[in-house]
């Protein structure tokens, strides 16, 4: 109020002297972002014919102003024009900050979305929407295999888990729109609960370089970004329809994006997939149908200095699990391995019966950001995730329609990040993150809980810096600390408790004794440190080298700690271990990137030494009324992985391009001096693409995908005495030997048609496994039972509008 009176007083005085017109308004125009002076900014007094232009230091001066109220319009070729109100009562000095923004906007229109690199020195690679769209009817894991060094661990062809340089599951973080996906990711049969169509860009960071997202990325981080909102009035969208012969499936996805010049935006996206039994060249893979219904919606405000984003995504999948892979005993497994054809083949159907998975994932997120002048940008995020996983096995009687696994996982995460970027040569990130997670296994399944009731609390803090040492050298370093507490309530069979020796080590955590089982309350704390150190060296205009050292630290996941029971798809009894410690990796990676006019390449060798690497390994045989079962227990060993990813691209002439990707990983258990299990086999993919721009942008590509035989594997074969042809025979069960290598050919073709000024139709025709080759893949858990997929014709219609 006081200010108002003073203002009024000044205004009155000003009015009295209104005739006097010799005041000067002067000052400086600077970039809001980093405080840099802006040269050649134009200042215009609105309503008067008075102009001024800033000099090299951003200074301006407007002379001969009368006292009064003025509106000053400040404009700059690279900035958004901004209006400022000012009242003049005497000669005034006033600095203006304007948004150095239009430049970004221009890039958006010229080059499409602009996604920043996640790390300075880490080896990372991105998939753009054009590539992702090809996998619209597939899964995230399939799309990621386009990146050399990324393979997948499959259960059939619908459950596809990405593997980065030999590591997967809990060792690979998946970030959906800034939120770390918590979708029971520990399970090898659990596909990421994420629709590939919801991402406009996916970046894979190999290794632990992206500390902001977590310190436990021994394998790497997969960052999926939704479309960045442009700051202009626009409405655009696309619809993709796909149909496939194998599985006789259809899928369609649509998205719509509305943005306003004011910074507001709203968008939505939805996908439906429906397919039936898949087929190998020779037989139907019964019960491998797949349904998916996903959508995401978001809205927000994207001003230069502040904004917010609200986002919700829903993923709902019903996935049939190959009927022939559900087995009751080791005898069944032996039969499966020895028979060339599965024991259960029915006619094609769209029906999905047990065994199957029914998974739903909700993710709600709210984030705010504010930019501070001469400092940087503060982000504040809150997210809530709810994951519901139902798994149905083949059961008897009244339980026939009851799931065998019924898990509800709720995760709340609160995180903040401050990017300090006001110095030209120096960027720093500081952040803190805390989360609370609760797992509830529904007891109505009538089956002992695979994963117990638990609560998990985490708190983390990190700092990273990027420093431009010179034009050629950019250095980076980061450190992160994670605290993890897990507080579980789990029932153990008395016999198991004793067999594991817990009655000696953990008797004090028993809180209840029942007839044949007991309730234990393990509470474990883990303190994890992770860090990264690296440099990016620009050798010349064409060559860039990156050097990165990183260390990641991961606490054992609930499955590694608590698993306790029979796995129906593998006929093994899996046992967790309460004694497990955290695992820590030390990784060194180099990446060399060359960009010449018609030739590009990347070379990416790495070595990863992991202390207390958690592995699942054979631990004897156990007799039950169903026969003998091999027991696999979690254990820790020191391990070493090394390998190389190579990518090259050669433009033969205006029309032909050759693309080549090669990846090799060598994993070794140092304690037993033998290879690690489930390491991707060396693979080499070559693609020859013909493109003729003048005729509907015709593109035809032939790809050869060669996967060599994995010669390095641990011998986990075991022998059991089982009845064979009425005789008790000691039988060797060959579960270790990888299948033979294979070479597949894939054909792709596409054409574009302009529908009208704003709409474009693309038509694609693809043939996967062109020669209908029989093959089995080492990293497919169903390789014991069936061949992999036969030939598949796909058509895809894409309409951009």
């Amino acid at each position, binding site marked *: 109020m006081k200010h108002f009176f003073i203002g009024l007083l000044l205004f009155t005085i000003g009015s009295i002297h209104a005739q006097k017109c010799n005041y000067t308004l002067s000052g400086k125009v600077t970039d809001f972002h980093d405080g840099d002076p802006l040269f050649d900014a134009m200042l215009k007094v609105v309503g008067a014919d008075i102009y001024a232009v800033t000099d090299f230091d951003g200074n301006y001066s407007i002379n001969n102003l009368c006292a009064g109220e003025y509106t000053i319009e400040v404009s700059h070729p690279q900035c958004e024009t901004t209006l400022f109100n000012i009242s003049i009562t005497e000669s005034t000095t006033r600095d203006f900050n304007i948004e150095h923004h239009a430049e970004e906007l221009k890039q958006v229109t010229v080059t499409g979305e602009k996604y920043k690199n996640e790390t300075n020195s880490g080896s990372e690679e991105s998939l753009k929407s054009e590539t992702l769209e090809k996998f619209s009817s597939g899964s995230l894991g399939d799309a990621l295999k386009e990146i050399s060094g990324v393979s997948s661990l499959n259960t059939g062809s619908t459950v596809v888990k990405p593997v980065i340089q030999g590591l997967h599951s809990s060792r690979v973080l998946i970030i959906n729109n800034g939120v770390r996906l918590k979708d029971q990711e520990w399970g090898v049969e659990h596909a990421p609960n994420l629709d590939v169509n919801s991402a406009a860009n996916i970046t894979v960071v190999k290794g632990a370089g992206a500390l902001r997202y977590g310190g436990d990325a021994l394998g790497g981080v997969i960052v999926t970004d939704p479309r960045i909102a442009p700051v202009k009035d626009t409405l655009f969208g696309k619809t993709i329809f796909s149909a496939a012969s194998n599985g006789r499936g259809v899928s369609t996805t649509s998205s719509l994006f509305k943005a306003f010049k004011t910074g507001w935006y709203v968008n939505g996206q939805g996908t439906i997939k429906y397919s039936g039994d898949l087929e190998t060249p020779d037989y139907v893979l019964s019960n491998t149908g797949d349904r998916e219904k996903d959508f995401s919606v978001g809205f927000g*405000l994207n001003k230069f200095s*502040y904004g*917010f984003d609200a986002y919700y995504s829903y993923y709902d999948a019903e996935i049939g699990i190959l009927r022939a892979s*559900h*087995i*009751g*005993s080791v*005898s*069944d497994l032996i039969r499966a391995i020895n028979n060339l054809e599965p*024991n*259960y083949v029915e006619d094609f159907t769209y029906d999905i019966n047990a065994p199957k998975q029914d998974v739903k994932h909700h993710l709600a997120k*709210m984030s*705010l950001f504010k930019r501070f002048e001469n400092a940087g940008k503060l982000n*504040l995020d*809150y997210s*809530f995730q709810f994951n519901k996983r139902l798994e149905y096995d*083949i*059961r*008897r*009687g009244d*339980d026939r329609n009851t799931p065998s696994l019924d898990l509800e996982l*709720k995760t*709340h995460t*609160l995180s903040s990040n401050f990017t300090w970027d006001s110095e030209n040569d120096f960027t720093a990130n500081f952040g803190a993150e805390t989360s609370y997670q609760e797992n509830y*296994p529904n*007891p109505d*399944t*009538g*089956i*002992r*809980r695979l994963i*117990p*009731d638990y609560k998990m609390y985490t708190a983390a803090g990190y700092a990273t810096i990027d420093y431009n040492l010179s034009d050629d050298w950019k250095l980076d370093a980061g450190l992160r600390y994670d605290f993890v507490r897990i507080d579980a*309530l789990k*029932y153990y*069979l*008395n*016999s*198991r408790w004793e*067999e594991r020796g817990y009655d000696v080590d953990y008797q004090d955590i028993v809180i*209840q004794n*029942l007839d*044949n*089982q007991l*309730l234990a309350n393990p509470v474990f704390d883990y303190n994890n440190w992770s860090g990264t150190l690296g440099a990016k060296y620009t050798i010349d205009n064409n060559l860039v080298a990156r050097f990165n050292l990183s260390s990641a630290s991961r606490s054992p996941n609930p499955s590694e700690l608590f698993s306790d*029971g029979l796995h129906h798809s593998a006929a093994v*009894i899996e046992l967790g271990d309460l004694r497990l410690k955290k695992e820590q990796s030390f990784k060194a990676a180099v990446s060399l990137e060359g960009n010449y006019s018609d030739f590009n390449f990347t070379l990416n060798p790495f070595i990863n030494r992991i202390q207390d690497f958690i592995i699942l390994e054979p631990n004897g045989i*156990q*007799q*039950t*009324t*169903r*026969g003998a*079962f091999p027991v696999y227990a979690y254990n820790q060993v020191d391990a070493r992985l090394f390998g190389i990813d190579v990518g090259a691209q050669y433009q033969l002439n205006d029309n032909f391009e050759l693309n080549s990707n090669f990846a090799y990983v060598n994993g070794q258990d140092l304690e037993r001096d033998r290879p690690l299990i489930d390491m991707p086999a060396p693979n080499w993919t070559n693609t020859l693409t013909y493109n003729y721009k003048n005729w509907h942008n015709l593109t035809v590509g032939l790809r050869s995908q060669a996967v060599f035989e994995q010669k390095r594997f641990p011998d986990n074969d075991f022998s059991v005495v*089982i*009845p064979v*042809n*009425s*005789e*008790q025979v000691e039988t060797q069960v060959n579960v270790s030997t990888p299948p033979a290598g294979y070479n597949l050919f894939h054909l792709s073709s596409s054409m574009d048609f302009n529908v009208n000024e704003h709409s474009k139709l693309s038509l694609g025709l693809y043939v996967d496994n062109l020669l209908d080759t029989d093959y089995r893949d080492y990293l497919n858990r169903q390789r014991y039972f069936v061949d992999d997929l036969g030939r598949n014709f796909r058509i895809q219609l894409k309409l951009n509008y």
Partner: protein
Amino acid sequence: MKSYKIITLLFLSVLAITSCSDDDRIPEPINEEEVITTVIVTLESSGPDDDVVFTSQDLDGDGPDEPTINIEGKLRANTTYSGSLTILNETVFPVEEINEEIEEEADKHQFFFEFNGFDGTTTYTDTEADYNGGNDNPVGLKFILNTGEASSGTFTVTLRHEPDKEASGVSQGDISNAGGETDVQQTFNISSI
């Protein structure tokens, strides 16, 4: 600036709503109903001898303890026994008779009997129709066991869930083409005098 405040308020209220109350519930124990702990083979002879009973009992189900095998009575050579099977889940109280479930889904179950070294044969004496409709295919809860010359060896009982009963030899008791999943597989060391 006003919108900024609203956003902050919205943000905090979301936090407040979602910070759920902490209920320290003790989870209820689960006693699995489908576990098969006990297989009892009862053989009644037409003669004066007592019944011969083979029992396999594994009270911790898929737990680490091995099944306890017990053979009661002695088989005689060249004798006909009428056999029956009792399948139990003894982890629950009252004890659950899995026989009832097998009878209800007789068409989805079949027992197989195999000898090794022991001179004996078995014949099914029940069909699906005896229990719950179905057709003439055997189930195997009831059977006849004929012993030959005095011998010793093993006797294996296997229960397959969802076997292909129409496959060659399966309804005569040949397991080779049966398919399906193994629910029970238990071997007894037996002899006859």
